[in-house]
């Protein structure tokens, strides 16, 4: 298995497709890699789920009743500039392709797809999110790098593994680097397990900062944290 697929294990994906059979088939693939797959049978349902769940990745069919894929994408882009979107369509029409590119998609997947294409789309997504360089490593400064696949942080000579929670938090901050993420949003990050307090979050950030070079995680007073990579 491709190493980057493990990145998705903590992610949630929104999948919109009107054909039920196809939706189930593709969803069962996605479920292999993602923590959670939200299925939407039309555009309207998809936009509602997007509002509520804030998925990490969006996979859209263009042809859908009520609201077609492109309109949906426009709506999503109004709220989130950075969420990676994969368009899956039978349309080989250039028109759709160009419109999609303008809406900043990360992959245009043509139906029917092969395993390679599918993997390629996911890889592009991961790349889009982490902006990594060679060997999936993300440079934090001149010496330090982060290996998101193995959750290792350090220099060439010495690396330190991140705990599960540290990794979850850091990945989240990293994927939205240079954006101040409010405490409330970060507290929800671990919502599944327990109610995470602000203090616990602070403690977690403190532990994380020890493993990182200085100035990567900055505290915006009274609002939240921001990941700054030079």
């Amino acid at each position, binding site marked *: 298995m491709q190493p980057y697929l493990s990145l998705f294990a903590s992610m949630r994906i929104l999948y919109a497709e009107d054909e039920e059979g196809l939706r189930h088939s593709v969803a069962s693939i996605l479920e292999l890699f993602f923590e959670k797959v939200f299925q939407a049978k039309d555009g309207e349902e998809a936009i509602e789920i997007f509002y509520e769940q804030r998925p990490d990745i969006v996979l859209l069919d263009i042809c859908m009743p009520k609201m077609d894929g492109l309109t949906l994408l426009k709506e999503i882009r109004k709220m989130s500039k950075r969420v990676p979107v994969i368009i899956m369509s039978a349309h080989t029409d250039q028109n759709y392709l160009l419109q999609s590119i303008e809406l900043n998609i990360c992959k245009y997947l043509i139906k*029917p797809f092969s395993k390679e294409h599918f993997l390629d789309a996911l890889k592009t997504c991961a790349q889009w999110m982490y902006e990594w360089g060679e060997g999936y490593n993300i440079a934090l400064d001149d010496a330090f790098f982060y290996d998101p696949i193995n959750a290792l942080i350090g220099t060439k000579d010495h690396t330190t593994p991140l705990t599960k929670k540290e990794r979850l938090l850091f990945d989240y901050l990293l994927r939205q680097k240079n954006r101040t993420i409010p405490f409330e949003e970060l507290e929800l990050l671990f919502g599944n397990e327990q109610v995470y307090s602000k203090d616990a979050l602070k403690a977690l950030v403190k532990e994380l900062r020890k493993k990182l070079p200085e100035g990567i995680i900055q505290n915006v007073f009274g609002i939240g944290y921001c990941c700054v990579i030079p």
Partner: protein
Amino acid sequence: MSFPSLLHHSLSTKTKTMFLVLGLFIAMATLFSVLRYMDVKAAIEKSRQDYTSQIHNIYHTALVRIGEFYTNRGYANLDSYGIKEALYHKDSTKLRELSQQRWNILKQENPFLLDMRFYDTSGESIVAIENKGKNTLISKKHFPLSVTFDFLFRNNESTYHITIPAYHNNQAIGTLEFTILSDYFLHEIEQFSGLKGYILSPFSPLLIDDAKLKKLSTTHGDISHSGAKTYITHAIHMQSSILQCTSQLLFFQDISDQQEKLLNAIYEAFFLSLGMLSIIIIALHYGFEVLIKRLEESESSLRHLNHTLEERVNQEIQKRYENEQMLLHQSRLASMGEMIGNIAHQWRQPLTELSATLVHLSFLHDLGSLNTQTMQASLGKAETLILHMSKTIDDFRNFFASDHEEELFCAYEAIQKAVMLIDSALKNNHITLHLETTNSCLILGYPRQFAQVILNIIGNAKDILLERQVKEPTITITLTCKDNTTCICIADNGGGISVDPIEKIFEPYVSTKHAISGTGIGLYMSKTIIEKNSKGSLRAYNNKEGAVFEILFSA
């Protein structure tokens, strides 16, 4: 009809026509000449008659005038002093003496006056003033008691006599007689007409001094010739009532001029006709020459046309056939294109699902979590999908197969078949299709061809809805049957047909679509199928939302 026989015919026609025209002309000319001749002749005849009546008039006038004149003179003489007394006493000397002067005057007045005689009541001559002339009206047997006029032809003399009886106290005392030579009348007539006359009496030979006239006929109105001249004879009868015989005054009128005129008229007519005839012959000849030349030219082109007509017709038929074939071929290609497009749409979804299933299996395998149950489920799913796709292909193949014979089929089913094929394509483009029907309608015809037409019309509607980017694109098919008439209406909300007149869309190669998507044959073939093969009708019109195609079948 071949060219040589035509030419021959035309030549013969020329001759015929020329003969006909010439014949007609000759007939006309003859008629004209005859009329002219008759005319001239009638004119001459009239002038002759006029002439005759003129002569007669002169004669009669002279007769009356001379009678009156001498009656007056006679009475005047008798009433003169001493005449009656002398007559009563039969005193010849006295009578001569008393009458001599008067006689001299009378004789001077009229040289043709022959004598003046007095008779007594017994008819005995008392005195003859000149004592000339042998004839007398008065005899013992004949003693007229009133004025009498008469001719006498006797003793080589032809004379006119006037007797005037003399009365004294109502008692006849004698008679006065004037004797005038008949030549007087010749003279009178000659004075007027300039014709020299001759007297023909039954007992004296005709004395004609002119040798030329001797041979001429003496019958009135006869025309006779003497030498180069022609004469007509005019005769005036002088009636002698006492002798019970007639004598004639003969005049020979020279009518050579008139005769010549008559001849001239004939010659004139003849030469005029001859001239006209030659002109006509020339005109006809050249006219026909030109006509025939033109005829030959048109014949030649006709022959050429005739010659090449069959070839051209065959060529045209061939061309038409080829066109038709090409049209059919193009139509077939277009249908195939459409069909492939539709198959692609129909297959895209199951294909994607199949690929997703396979990808899923592959991932499971990679993860090492592929168990038999999942494997079986996925294989079953894949098989179902493949079967579905296979069925789709069969549907298409069935759909485009040709019908062999007419049959009674359900219109609703046929429409559904068509809709099934294009359903995916419509769905992928968010086009809504409504199929409305109240009952199933049966149609006699070719079900597959019918379904193809429906598919074609729906396909056109789809194309136009996409091209115009209509909001909420909808196609509505309404199937109704009532009173043995089945009506299928296919309406869209695409804004209508922009071709004017609308019927033009049923012509081949007329397309409202872009060059890529339309060949312009579909509707032409549809119309052919519906109207020629199935005896239905296909028409199109616009309503307020878009185009409506209406197919009608009457059972």
